[in-house]
């Protein structure tokens, strides 16, 4: 099977998931007891009826759903119920670049540091670099982002004054250092542990021993034979890692005051702004699906067994 067919099949496979996500989030928000206009002070019934008509909430559920889906296909996520001056699409368009920048930077940083750390730990198994790195890894996995973020801001922003505590100016990259590092830390820790375990397993495999027996230098055995195989579980972790980074970005954007999607989502949830929350969740879900797809493609590229046949 050609790789083009593989890519097409995977892309088509993502569509039902997206449909379910859109349907479920629509149904959930419409099931809600009370509407978006339930303020502390009850609105007069005429105003309420006008508002509901303006947002199309007086239509039957099926019509509302049809309109919403048609809008989505045009890239229109509807109006925000609380930010009266912005549509949800505008909020997404303003937040997405920020969130993507820190998310992708964090993932790249995590791969660049986590994988070598894991390889080093595996090669130094049982000695001090291994013990040290693995203690860091356990800490990195157990300490949540919302604890790490304020402590980093306190240490580097307030006490040492090396970096801005919070804020965002376009083009000022020092604003991004703390958010990206915070997001990357748990992924670095997990990748290091995963790489170490997987490489140790591969190094015991018969084909690696065979390569050594043929007298190949240790570096060639490691880089050409062991590492590509050892990286497979690492690649399949990239999907969950993406999910972790996206969830973490809610915290990081809130703490460091970045105007990304995560902060809009949290604001939307606090205001019970249904359309905003739905729109953000759909975009986040789509992002996750795309990045999972990318991870699958890299996996297939590394492991020809999958490319050639059968399901994953």
């Amino acid at each position, binding site marked *: 099977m050609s790789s083009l067919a593989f890519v097409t099949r995977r892309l088509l496979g993502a569509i039902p998931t997206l449909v379910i996500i859109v349907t479920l989030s629509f149904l*959930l928000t419409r099931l809600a007891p009370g509407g978006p206009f339930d303020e502390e002070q009850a609105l007069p019934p005429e105003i309420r009826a006008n508002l509901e008509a303006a947002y199309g909430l007086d239509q039957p559920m099926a019509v509302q759903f049809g309109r919403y889906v048609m809008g989505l296909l045009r890239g229109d996520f509807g109006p925000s119920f609380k930010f009266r001056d912005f549509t949800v699409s505008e909020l997404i368009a303003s937040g997405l670049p920020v969130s993507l920048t820190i998310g992708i930077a964090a993932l790249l940083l995590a791969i660049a540091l986590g994988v070598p750390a894991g390889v080093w730990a595996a090669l130094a198994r049982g000695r001090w670099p291994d013990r040290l790195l693995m203690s860091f890894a356990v800490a990195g996995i157990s300490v949540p982002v919302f604890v790490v973020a304020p402590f980093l801001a306190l240490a580097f922003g307030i006490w040492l004054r090396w970096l801005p505590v919070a804020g965002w100016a376009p083009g000022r990259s020092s604003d991004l250092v703390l958010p990206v590092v915070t997001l990357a830390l748990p992924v670095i820790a997990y990748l290091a542990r995963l790489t170490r375990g997987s490489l140790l397993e591969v190094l015991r495999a018969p084909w690696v021993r065979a390569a050594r027996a043929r007298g190949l230098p240790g570096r060639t055995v490691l880089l050409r034979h062991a590492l590509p195989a050892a990286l497979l579980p690492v690649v399949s972790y990239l999907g969950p890692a993406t999910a972790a980074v996206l969830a973490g970005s809610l915290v990081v954007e809130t703490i460091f005051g970045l105007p990304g999607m995560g902060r809009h989502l*949290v604001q939307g949830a606090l205001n019970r702004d249904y359309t905003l929350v739905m729109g953000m969740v759909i975009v986040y879900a789509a992002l996750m699906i795309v990045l999972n797809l990318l991870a699958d493609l890299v996996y297939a590229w590394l492991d020809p067994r999958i490319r050639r046949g059968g399901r994953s």
Partner: protein
Amino acid sequence: MSSGLWNDAFRQLRGDRAAMTGLVVLSWLVIAAAAGPLLVDYREDQIDWANMAVPPFTAEGHWLGTDRLGRDLLVRTLHGLRVSLVIALAATLVSLVIGVAWGAIAGYLRGRADALMMRFVDVLYALPQVFFVIILTVVFGRGPLTLLIAIGAFGWLTMARIVRGQALALREREFVEAAVVGGAGTLRIVLRHIVPNLLGPVIVYATLTVPQVILVESFLSFLGIGIQEPLASLGNLIADGAAEMETAPWMLAVPAGCLVLLVFCFNFLGDGLRDALDPRDRR
């Protein structure tokens, strides 16, 4: 047959330093959360006008200091610990019951019923869980009960998968065959013969689920969409602390330290139990 397994497991666990430390510290934390607030002279929402935002060990009676409103931080942290623990245990119990029932039935029935049931699990698995929990809190309002339901709604998926895999293997064993020959019904076989033999992996995974739930709950409470003031949870205490960290860093350090300790203990204990109860998985 099973008493040997449990004895071995117990011996192995007692030799595991990290797991035993986790267990001991965890017991202290649980006792402190349950009984601690009774031993301190202040209630969790009581305002001490004379001692506002005092650092630890400086004011009489406030061991760990007070927050900006003069509320005792030790009592608030113990209350937060209590709320976080209760929600975590309850949500774990919910996901345990649903997951074990779902997985055991699917694995025992096999065939089309199994395929259908596990397909449903796959679909829920593909959803971005944290975001759907957020939607649920938006829809049903914020509060402990919503959190419990929302977290429980997704927590059972992995448990169902693990249990199903085990059940598929168990149903081929002789004692199940014997029960079938003996005329036992499906429900009886699942409850009396399959489920008891699943206990090992179920205990291990449940222990590892608790810290996950604690983290999700504190994450949402931190963002302001979980447990609400004046009720304290470790998450909203950390959020309060982060807001005041410049002037009162202890407000951040105390609940954060408590949360990290709690998660560490559960993870160490869970890893130890896995080594003890599931020898195949030992690395």
